């Protein structure tokens, strides 16, 4: 179960992701990130309330980051909990996308 919310703050489109980013939720997450990237110059993905992410969820974030890179959109992954952060690290994604502890706004 995943819940997505989007708001604009200080020039950033903040996509808040709550719940579990699993195989069932991955398409919904990817579509939301792509839509945000399509319409905004700066996108911050707020993972503060994300309790779980699997490889399917990672792929969704990866596809969002790739779409952002292709369009020249700034794309930040923010506030993952320790377990979620560990999965990003194990996947090497911290080398190819910006992951930070706090939101930029």
């Amino acid at each position, binding site marked *: *179960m995943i819940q997505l919310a989007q708001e604009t703050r200080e020039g950033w489109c903040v996509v808040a992701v709550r719940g*579990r980013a*699993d*195989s*069932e939720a991955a398409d919904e997450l990817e579509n939301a990130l792509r839509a945000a990237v399509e319409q905004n110059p700066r996108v911050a993905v707020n993972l503060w309330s994300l309790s*779980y992410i*699997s*490889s*399917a969820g*990672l*792929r969704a974030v*990866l*596809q969002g*980051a*790739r779409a952002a*890179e*292709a369009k020249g959109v700034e794309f930040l992954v923010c506030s993952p909990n320790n*377990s979620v952060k560990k*999965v990003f690290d*194990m*996947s*090497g994604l911290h*080398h*190819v*996308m910006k992951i930070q502890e706090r939101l930029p706004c």
Partner: protein
Amino acid sequence: MSQSALLKHTEFELDGNLGELGRLVEYVDQFCLAADLDGEAPFELNLVLEELFTNAVRHGGCEGMKNAVHVRFGLLENGGVAVEYRDRGTPFDPTSVAEPDLAAPLSQRQPGGLGIHLLRQTMRDLRYQRAGDWNRLTMRREGKQEAKSI
């Protein structure tokens, strides 16, 4: 105490559809709680089993199959967990999958292969065999020393 002693082993079956992920989470959480495992255990066991289960449903021909997947947990003395995962999908050996290139730049990252990489990072002693109509994977998660909060 008596309850956790009773729950040193658990096993369950899942049908071949992704709607079963919710039940998988429940079984994993119940076992981890009853076995008094460290706080990272539910996340890691779900990560591994979701990967195998989703692969079997999406790519292994298990879609729509009743009792397509069978999982067994055994609690080890040191707080580790022995896991046996079986599915009735087409033969697939996760231990033979090539490692993804984790150093590749974003534009060249291949979306596939991450899940099996995470499985290998998380679990030890992976052993695969094809047993009749079943893929059978055994593996172990190490127990983690953790100061239990509260």
